[in-house]
């Protein structure tokens, strides 16, 4: 159940150039959240910046009740957040629908011992670490291939952490400073040859759009986490729409904050 809370910051550090990880105490989140869900965080004290910022849950430690977010300082809200080293942050969460594998809802993933691919691009890797944590907890490490892409080597996120969990990881960078030189979707194309059972992805639209096309063409089901500007975060303001095709093929809007941020790959109209 989502709550409004003041969570005490226990750590905040820059983990890669411009990428920050903030840790805070939030036992209810650590217990109740599902990978893919997000938090709506107040990033300022006055009225500028005004709106909360949606940030995914990066990892949880159920034991200690600590939760982490990983974010890129891109504008004034995230810059403010990065400047908070102690004290409290004002959070609403957990919000949204996470990856359905963990929500108990019906999913495209209904086979036994499924072979999975997890694809992260840039800061889109942030929520995927929580996903990997859960997959590891379920003992799925062997059946998962993790593909990570970034602009350049020092922007590759969650790589070491994923390997520590025991996952098989392949990487791609735009400038070839490490791994494959080119888009991470090229690596996915190779993986799709092996007909995986399900693909999880999070990243920028220019990565997710072709990715969804590839999944459709390959006939592989999957889920993607998408972004849209949000005001309320709770389904009240109707701002965060994403165009989707419903099962009957009819196009309509769904709301990223309550119907998403995770959508079936085939559902999203790019």
């Amino acid at each position, binding site marked *: *159940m989502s709550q409004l809370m003041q969570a005490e910051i226990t750590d905040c550090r820059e983990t890669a150039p411009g990428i920050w990880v903030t840790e805070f105490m939030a036992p209810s989140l650590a217990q109740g959240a599902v990978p893919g869900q997000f938090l709506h965080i107040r990033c300022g004290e006055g009225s500028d910046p005004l709106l909360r910022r949606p940030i995914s849950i990066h990892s949880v430690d159920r034991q200690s009740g600590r939760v982490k977010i990983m974010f890129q300082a891109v504008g004034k809200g995230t810059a403010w957040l990065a400047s908070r080293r102690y004290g409290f942050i004002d959070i609403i969460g957990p919000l949204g629908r996470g990856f359905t594998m963990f929500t108990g809802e019906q999913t495209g993933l209904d086979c036994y011992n499924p072979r999975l691919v997890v694809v992260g691009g840039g800061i889109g890797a942030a929520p995927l670490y929580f996903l990997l944590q859960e997959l590891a907890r379920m003992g799925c490490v062997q059946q998962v291939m993790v593909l990570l892409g970034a602009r350049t080597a020092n922007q590759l996120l969650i790589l070491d952490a994923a390997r520590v969990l025991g996952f098989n990881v392949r990487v791609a960078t735009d400038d070839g400073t490490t791994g494959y030189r080119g888009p991470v979707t090229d690596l996915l194309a190779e993986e799709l040859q092996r007909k995986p059972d399900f693909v999880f992805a999070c990243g920028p639209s220019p990565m997710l759009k072709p990715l969804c096309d590839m999944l459709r063409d390959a006939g592989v089901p999957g889920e993607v986490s998408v972004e849209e*500007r949000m005001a309320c975060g709770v389904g009240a303001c109707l701002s965060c729409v994403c165009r989707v095709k419903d099962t009957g093929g009819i196009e309509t809007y769904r709301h990223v904050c309550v119907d998403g941020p995770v959508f079936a790959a085939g559902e999203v109209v790019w």
Partner: protein
Amino acid sequence: MNTEVNLGGIVMKNPVTTASGTFGFGLEYQPYVALQRLGAITVKGTTLKPRLGNPPPRIAETPSGMLNAIGLQNPGVERVAEEIMPRLAGLGVPVIINIAGDTVEDYAQVARRLDGVPGVAGLEVNISCPNVKKGGIQFGSDPHTAAEVTRAVKAATGLPVIVKLSPNVTDLVAMAEAVARAGADALSMINTLLGMAIDVDRRRPVLGNITGGLSGPAVRPVAVRAVWQVHRALPFTPILGMGGIMTARDALEFILAGATAVAVGTGNFVNPLATVDVVGGIEQYMSNHGFTNISELVGLAQRYTGDN
């Protein structure tokens, strides 16, 4: 201490409601807010037929404010009456339904359909939504058509009718007078200011709809001025004031300027507890300053006439 107000026939136990479109149908905020603490709940703009709304992006943040171009996405009056109102009726809080339409007849039909629906305490007529191309803006900027819509809605319902005014006009007082004469039981103001933002990197408007409505603390001075001017001209017409209210002090600016009740809009997004904080803060202020009835505060700043 008495904080009860009568907003043109809608009796509210305190002067605080929600601004239409910012609080969904109330239920979205139930995990966070004790809804029974509210004087009333004003819900999303409702039209005759369901509407899908505008293409994204639908919002943009601006300094101390936001632009929205939702485009009146709503499930249509039928579902509001049949599915949503039954869930709200049980809360014991008056529900004000904001209505909109493309034609005068649209408004009348929506009003008629809501007449007698349990839980509906009043209608707020949105003649001022800047995000709907047909109707909407025209009704809100011409006194004659505004009066016509008001008369049609009044004729279609026995419920109290609040008419919501747009600040995007040269003469707000003329608009207020026209709809008051046409039978409006109360006025609400302000709807959003017409604005836009440009994405400098992509060299195009940020919003899918190009222009949108500006709300939030940024517009508060315009809203307080609107309430002040209209209350001065029409001291006996109750006003529901809104525009940038985040705290009880903000709300008190409106009340002291002449608002009988206030609505919190964009503030809910920032602080889901904004409404109840305002309720508590007003009570605190009254007890600190020795006021026993909220009505003593309404328009009190208008009495000031000294030169400094």
